């Protein structure tokens, strides 16, 4: 008999995706990155995004998730960073790439 096959991410729940894309992956060094103060907000907003989906309720993971994102956001905010929006060119054309 063929062994169990994993669900591809399209069939996996949004929760599986959020877990990975928001919580894991590489992080940029704090001094390079644009202010991440928005990230806790994204956590809270996404709770709305998926509220009502059965899985989200089933795993009851949102509170924990939002909390950990907030904690991570708070930790990042303790690192030195600049919030000053940089001035810049008005050039909206994408870089030329070969």
């Amino acid at each position, binding site marked *: 008999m063929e062994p169990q096959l994993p669900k591809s*991410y399209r069939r996996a729940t949004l929760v599986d995706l959020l877990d990975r894309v928001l919580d894991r*992956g590489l992080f940029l060094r704090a001094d390079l*990155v644009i202010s991440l103060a928005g990230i806790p907000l994204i956590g809270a907003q996404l709770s709305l995004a998926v509220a009502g989906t059965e899985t989200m309720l089933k795993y009851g993971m949102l509170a924990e998730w939002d909390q950990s994102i907030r904690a991570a956001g708070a930790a990042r905010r303790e690192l030195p960073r600049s919030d000053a929006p940089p001035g810049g060119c008005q050039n909206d054309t994408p870089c030329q790439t070969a």
Partner: protein
Amino acid sequence: MTVTNVDAGANANAVATDALYVYCVARGDGNCLMGPIGLDDRTVYTLTSGPLRAVVHNCPAQPYESQDPQVLQQWIIAHQEVVQAAANAFGAVLPMSFDMIVRPAQAGSAGDALIAWLDEKRDRFCRLLDRVEGKAEYGVQIFCDRQRMAASLVEDDQALGDMRDEAAAKPRGLAHILQQKLAKAVREGVEKQADAMAQDFYGRLRRCVDDVRVEKLRKDDSGMQMLLNLSCLMPDGAKELGRELDEIQDTPGVSVRFTGPWPPYSFVGA
């Protein structure tokens, strides 16, 4: 740097896009245009330094935020799809977390800053890429039905069965105390059994994969208890894990969720 004569109201489209949203790091030299597949259909391309490249799009120097849940979902999915497209094009990738945007530095452009970062991390990223080459991440979650476990525990365990029978035979007040005692013993028994199962399953699954991360358990109010939450790294398409999960799934009261292949989000951290 100065911004000259921009009427914000009239020129809403003229926001500077001098920051870089980063999707992932991969191997390869030569810049490459991947097309309008990014968040909000931004044009995605690569920036290269040495043996490494970063997959990016140009964006304003502000985080992606929205009040619209649909928009947020689309961004998250677009992020994942770009990482997947990069994996298809370049092989192993180190996925970035969402909303990792390099800002232009005073000394140079965001591109300069990103390339300096790639150079600084080169050894580490090359090692990580070696480690995930040809492999994919799979999510495994194992649940057990506590009620069912409790019921079979009382059936199978002589001492607990005796307690139940004794409680049934006593007058009401005493029966109540005995039932509470029984409930506590059953709870502890279930807990012990769940721990033992989790350890057993972990050992069996660990042997099937190259690397494993133990993730936090999630609470569940449906009566199913999460026993294990693992991220597993193994050769893409390998069958051993699925076979072992089939066997685990045959355990009464146990159910399994198996997702993937994912880019190795859980295997690029410290």
